[in-house]
């Protein structure tokens, strides 16, 4: 993300936002359920450039070429479902407080209510699941959702990200990369890790660039 078009309040172009939505959408679809054969085939056809993110995508594509859907499903089960619990608990509340369904989930639900976003019928995962949050980020990036109405400094996409993902998503992707059963998902974790890092830095950059301008406008 360049985010440096001069004098504009819009930090990124539409095509870049569309690409960000694609990144978030892919993370969401990989983390919400075990990827099926056709999704794996689509991932196997991805190309990447020589940036860190591009290399991560190339490694994921290479892993998807040889991945057995049944083995990936088993891996997903061991990682996120398990007997009793999976190896990881991909919930914001767990990462921030150490327990499930705690205040971070309540905060998120309040913000989602303000944004007018709610769980689809038949989806029972709490909203602070990493896949749900990725899906919301995809919606925010593509303009499908809007977080402008959020208060307490969480307004806008950057505010939503800073409040609900930044405190724990990097840690989660680091954990996913070292989880004992992770094999295919190690590459997903790498993409998530690199991509959230880029997002954090880009939002920071946009905030710094916007900061003096908004301060000047206030005067």
């Amino acid at each position: 993300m360049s985010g440096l078009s001069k004098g504009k309040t819009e930090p990124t172009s539409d095509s870049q936002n569309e690409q960000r939505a694609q990144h978030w959408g892919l993370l969401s679809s990989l983390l919400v359920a075990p990827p099926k054969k056709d999704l794996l085939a689509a991932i196997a056809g991805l190309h990447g450039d020589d940036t860190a993110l591009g290399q991560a995508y190339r490694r994921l594509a290479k892993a998807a070429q040889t991945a057995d859907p049944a083995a990936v499903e088993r891996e997903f089960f061991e990682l996120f479902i398990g007997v009793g619990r999976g190896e990881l608990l991909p919930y914001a509340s767990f990462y921030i407080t150490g327990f499930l369904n705690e205040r971070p989930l309540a905060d998120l639900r309040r913000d989602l209510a303000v944004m007018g976003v709610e769980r689809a019928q038949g989806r029972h995962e709490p909203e602070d699941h990493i896949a749900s949050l990725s899906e919301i980020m995809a919606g925010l990036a593509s303009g499908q959702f809007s977080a402008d109405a959020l208060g307490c400094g969480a307004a806008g996409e950057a505010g939503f990200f800073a409040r609900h993902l930044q405190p724990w998503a990097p840690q989660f992707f680091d954990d996913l990369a070292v989880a004992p059963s992770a094999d295919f998902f190690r590459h997903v974790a790498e993409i998530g890790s690199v991509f959230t890092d880029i997002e954090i830095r880009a939002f920071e950059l946009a905030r710094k660039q916007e900061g003096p301008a908004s301060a000047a406008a206030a005067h």
Partner: protein
Amino acid sequence: MPKAILRLGIVAMSRPPVTQWSGRVLRPVSVMIDLPPLEAGALMADRDGVQTVYLGDHELALHSGETRHYIDNLMARQPSVWVAMDNDRIAVVTVDPYEGEALASDPERMVEAVPMPTTLAARLDAFVKEHHVDEVFHKRKRVPATSADAPRAPRILQPQAKWVQTRGRSGRGPLGKG
């Protein structure tokens, strides 16, 4: 799930009643691991009115999940076999002392703990050695939330902390370990 079934011959004894108002009562007195060539109910001896009767053979099931109880039995000064009878018919034969004592709580039943033959004790010991899985008793206690052992779930569950079926020989290790 029974892992081994043995057959034991049961010998009972009845004494002449001490009053004219009571009848003879058959009580199990011993078990035999080698079955004699006798019909069930055959009179083995009758000396001064004390009758020894062969009650026939009955199965003794050894369960792999109850080896702890068998160890307790074998460690007793006199290892025993519990024989429970309903109306002069053998109902249950067990070497699990707790099952035996539970049977004895039924007043309608005749339950006797008879000495275990040394050959049977050896068989039982071999069975225990083959199947016993030692389970360490873990007493759970509350710890303060500020303690280092606070009951927080681990962020990454390690394979050794995963639930696997460990009880008995059918317990399998984690996936991929055979």
